């Protein structure tokens, strides 16, 4: 092996290392907890889920982390609904402003309920919503909230089996192996 060979190998090795460094530095972008939502969207969706399944004696959708379920699934199996959220959320805010002159998060609890009821019944500024169906958007939010609340934690929601505890389901089940020698 010649001197030249060695240094070329080293050269390639170091270059690869250098590229590794670059690739590590390359991801020093902004931080986000979210996969799909922006920080504001996430706050909004979280509040909506809290309206749909509020906490009473038992925890609700916020405590169960339902917004994490929706966020996670929107870049997975529910990707088809991305556009519905991107279009629907601003329209919902628009409806809030129209009805109360405030954004959803600034509204009182009862006012938030009123807005969601308006969506559910389609009783909104049709001109602004145009092609979009407020009823459809509401039922989407409701379905996804239910899924996140009652589904398995592995999909992102139902944190610590919160809803199963409410239903008095002992999860994870306590079941021993099939024992051939019983003591």
């Amino acid at each position: 092996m010649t001197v030249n060979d060695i240094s070329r190998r080293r050269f390639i090795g170091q270059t690869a290392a250098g590229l590794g460094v670059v690739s590590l530095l390359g991801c020093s972008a902004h931080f986000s907890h979210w996969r799909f939502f922006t920080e504001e969207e996430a706050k909004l969706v979280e509040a909506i889920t809290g309206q749909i399944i509020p906490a009473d004696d038992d925890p609700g959708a916020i405590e169960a982390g339902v917004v994490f379920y929706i966020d996670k699934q929107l870049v997975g199996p529910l990707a088809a609904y991305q556009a519905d959220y991107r279009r629907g959320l601003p329209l919902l805010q628009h409806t809030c402003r129209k009805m109360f002159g405030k954004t959803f998060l600034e509204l009182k609890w009862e006012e938030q309920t009123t807005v969601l009821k308006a969506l559910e019944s389609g009783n909104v500024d049709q001109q602004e919503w145009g092609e979009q169906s407020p009823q459809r958007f509401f039922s989407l939010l409701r379905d996804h909230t239910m899924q996140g609340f009652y589904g398995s934690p592995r999909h992102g929601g139902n944190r610590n089996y919160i809803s199963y505890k409410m239903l008095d389901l002992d999860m994870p089940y306590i079941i021993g192996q099939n024992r051939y020698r019983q003591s």
Partner: protein
Amino acid sequence: MKKPNQTTMILLAGALTLALLIAFGAFFTWWSLASPRKTCLSCHEMQTNYDNWADSYHRDINCKSCHGGALSNGWHSMLENGRRVVGHFSGNSRPELAMQEEQILRILPRCKGCHEAEYADWQAGGHSVTYADIYLDATHNHTEQPHNDCMRCHGMFFSGNIAEIVTPVNNQGPWRFVDAEKAEQPVIPCLACHHIHRPGQPAQAPDYAEPQMIASTRPARLVNVEFYVRSEKTHFAAADLPALKLWEGARPVQVSDDVRQRVCSQCHAPDAWHQAGTSDDRTPRGVHEGLSCLACHAPHKHETAQSCGNCHPALSNCGLDVKVMDTTFRDPASKNNIHFAKCADCHKDGRTSTRKAG
């Protein structure tokens, strides 16, 4: 055109190599010393892990003490990082950051480095049992063929199915591992019961200025014990696991409310009908009903010899030293199982009614 001569080539390559080496060395030093906020976290996907760590009892410990530096895991980890970045920029959504069994096992020697006593105890107790002990046990396999559910309690971090561990998947055998390396790996590693990225408080010194107040002001500090639930690919804190409801016939058994025992009960569990003593259930009944496993079993090593003296005076109800009485403590072959023995098991003639005062 004049070819550059070989010396120039060597010099050039040498200079480049040197420059890269210096840059790289500087980077490596920085990487090893800088705050995790600047290094590990530069992949923003780790924000959540960082937050969890910053609130954990390991908050004073650098990411690298457990995960290794960018390079100490070798090119492999670098490649992984590379892939993650590629996946990220190709818009291919955010990859899940979950550790594979291989990485979980690679961390074990690091736990050992700081928790030598616990590691040694674990090694000496039954929980350091290996894949070979569990999956090549002929008696067990002949009676019940290996299946996916075994991994709920043995090998919870393995991501594949049973056919990827042992072959053939039947009750005839002879069985062998698909990957011979599995044989010596532990099936119940530290992380089966401990979760690192979760909230916890490091221990703190009391206020010595008021010595008489130390006891009353000491904050309750529970050691964090969790259980890795394979089906959910996540840990559950002991307090979030269900409490065992157990029956002896129709009688509800009084089960200790020590939450740590809920972890034990996930594996040392009764059958689906929760009849006491079925399957691997060891929940105490009889004279020890209501006691927690950890009242007698030291964690990790499970030795019990020191525990009797915590509760038993030199002479017991029976006027005897409990350690030499006929139970499975003294002799594993005894018919009086220490977990289940009742007064009546030894006093069939009803002599217990003549119990002396004092």
